[in-house]
């Protein structure tokens, strides 16, 4: 099995997601990274520190748009004869993967959380139905395309020499019709709850809207976002845009700290996909204790500020 792994880069550095997928691919077969964009060659060499033995680089000033990359990958697949192309899901990568699937008439499985080789075949695993079932998926024909869920695999540091091979590709005319004419970075006070890797959420157990300031401090220390349950949003304690749940937003951060939240199903369905769920609650019968990973029985008004302090001193 020969893998090509898209290594996305931004501001001169390789993105974690692609490096994680590279590590996984390297464990399964002969793998090479692919870097496309400005300073591609230079960026490609960074992959050596993460276990890549070979990286294909296409140096180009093209903006971060998908369609020229579809052309590049199509060329590269033909050139290398790779049978599998993997992408770490991102806004850009998802579009590239889908475009490439259409271009090569190749099967694409997305939202993969794991990959393995079974009886000589590549098998992917992905959650379905709101993360309530796991499905094993496969491919027919070649090449196989896979979009891996963000954060599913961690990069592995492994020093070694990396061979960077430049390549060129013709670009279809329609691929350059879309152009970048502007860019803004939104000054934000932290990530929105949909993007955040860490969320600190509050429910009725907070007792009063003032207690949200405790959560805000913890979230700031962790570099995360603050979310709320329907009950407290209804009561006007926190804005609707932060509501997580059946009638609010669905989030799947790496870490979800639920403070004073009972865990009724209307809330659960909005956050059950989180990687690790920590619940802090005074009520031992709260349903959240049935499905969290770490259940803390105690007073959040004591525990949260202490945790904030500890996090700050650890990071600081």
């Amino acid at each position: 099995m020969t893998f090509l792994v898209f290594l996305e880069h931004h501001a001169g550095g390789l993105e974690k997601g692609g490096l994680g997928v590279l590590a996984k691919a390297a464990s399964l077969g002969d793998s090479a990274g692919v870097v496309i964009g400005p300073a591609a060659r230079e960026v490609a060499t960074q992959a050596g520190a993460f276990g890549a033995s070979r990286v294909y680089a296409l140096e180009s000033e093209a903006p971060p748009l998908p369609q020229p990359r579809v052309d590049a990958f199509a060329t590269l697949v033909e050139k290398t004869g790779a049978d599998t192309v993997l992408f770490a899901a991102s806004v850009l990568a998802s579009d590239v993967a889908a475009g490439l699937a259409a271009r090569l008439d190749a099967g694409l499985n997305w939202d993969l959380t794991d990959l393995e080789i079974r009886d000589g075949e590549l098998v992917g695993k992905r959650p379905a139905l709101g993360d309530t079932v796991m499905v094993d998926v496969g491919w027919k024909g070649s090449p196989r395309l896979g979009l891996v869920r963000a954060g599913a695999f961690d990069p592995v540091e492994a020093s070694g020499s990396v061979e960077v091979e430049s390549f060129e590709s013709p670009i279809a005319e329609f691929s350059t019709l879309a152009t970048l004419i502007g860019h803004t970075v939104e000054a934000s006070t932290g990530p929105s709850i949909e993007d955040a890797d860490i969320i600190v959420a509050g429910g009725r157990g907070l007792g009063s809207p003032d207690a949200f300031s405790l959560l805000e401090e913890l979230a700031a220390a962790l570099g995360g976002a603050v979310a709320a349950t329907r009950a407290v949003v209804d009561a006007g304690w926190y804005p609707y845009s932060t509501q997580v749940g059946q009638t609010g937003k669905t989030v799947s951060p790496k870490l979800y700290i639920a403070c004073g939240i009972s865990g009724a199903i209307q809330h659960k369905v909005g956050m059950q996909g989180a990687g690790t769920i920590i619940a802090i609650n005074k009520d031992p019968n709260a349903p959240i204790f049935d499905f969290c990973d770490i259940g803390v029985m105690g007073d959040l008004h004591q525990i949260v500020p202490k945790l904030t302090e500890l996090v700050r001193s650890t990071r600081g």
Partner: protein
Amino acid sequence: MKIAVCVKHVPDATVHKRIDPGTKRLVRSGESALNPTDLNAVEEALRIKEAQGGEVVLVSLGPVKAIDSLRKALAMGADRAVVVSDEAAAGSDLLGTSRALAAALEREAADLVLFGQASSDGDGAVLWAAVADRLRRPVISQVASLTFEGGEVHGKRQTEHGYDVISAPLPAVVAVSDAINEPRYPSLKGIMGAKTKPQETLSLADLGVPPSEAGEAAAKTTVLELGAPSSRGDQIRIEDDGSAAQKILDLVLERRLL
């Protein structure tokens, strides 16, 4: 301007969803509705039509029942609906679906093709890019706001690194995020008028798509097995005796969550 909105009929999210253990496909019986984020695409199309004039056509691939779920979009103000409905298309993967949709869209020759960003049944996260490749037209996804200048569309595209403003000449394919607008409620007049709006059903043959290129047989991905979700592993219980905060931090660091 002629705007084609690709909409998907999905089983209503509230109906008890399950995967049929025999076919390994989502059981699609029970009430059905339009995919929620498609409504954002329909709303955007209607706003453009209201500003510039033109026609809004709904294009969908699905069972004949799909026409029922398109009624809401017709009630909102779309002008007509085209449903590609063919037994042979059942079980299509991204390739078959994008092929059939692209053929229908080519037939419509719209200036702008809109998609909603996400699908509530998790089945079509990336359809627009595949369709755009087949149509050989530019694609802009994750669009949180859309404007027009000359014969070009400008989309404010939201990425992990902020917003890019992308320009593309028409005809173009655009996928809008749910941040772009709040879909309107259909008026009573709209609901009553929806039934009389033209609704066309096409087969794969009408589109020149051979059955061998759609449906389950043509799919290049397979579902092998269903399983229980990987269990969360053992739960750790902590009773606070003053040290809970430290224990939490230790666990968070241990699991490399920071």
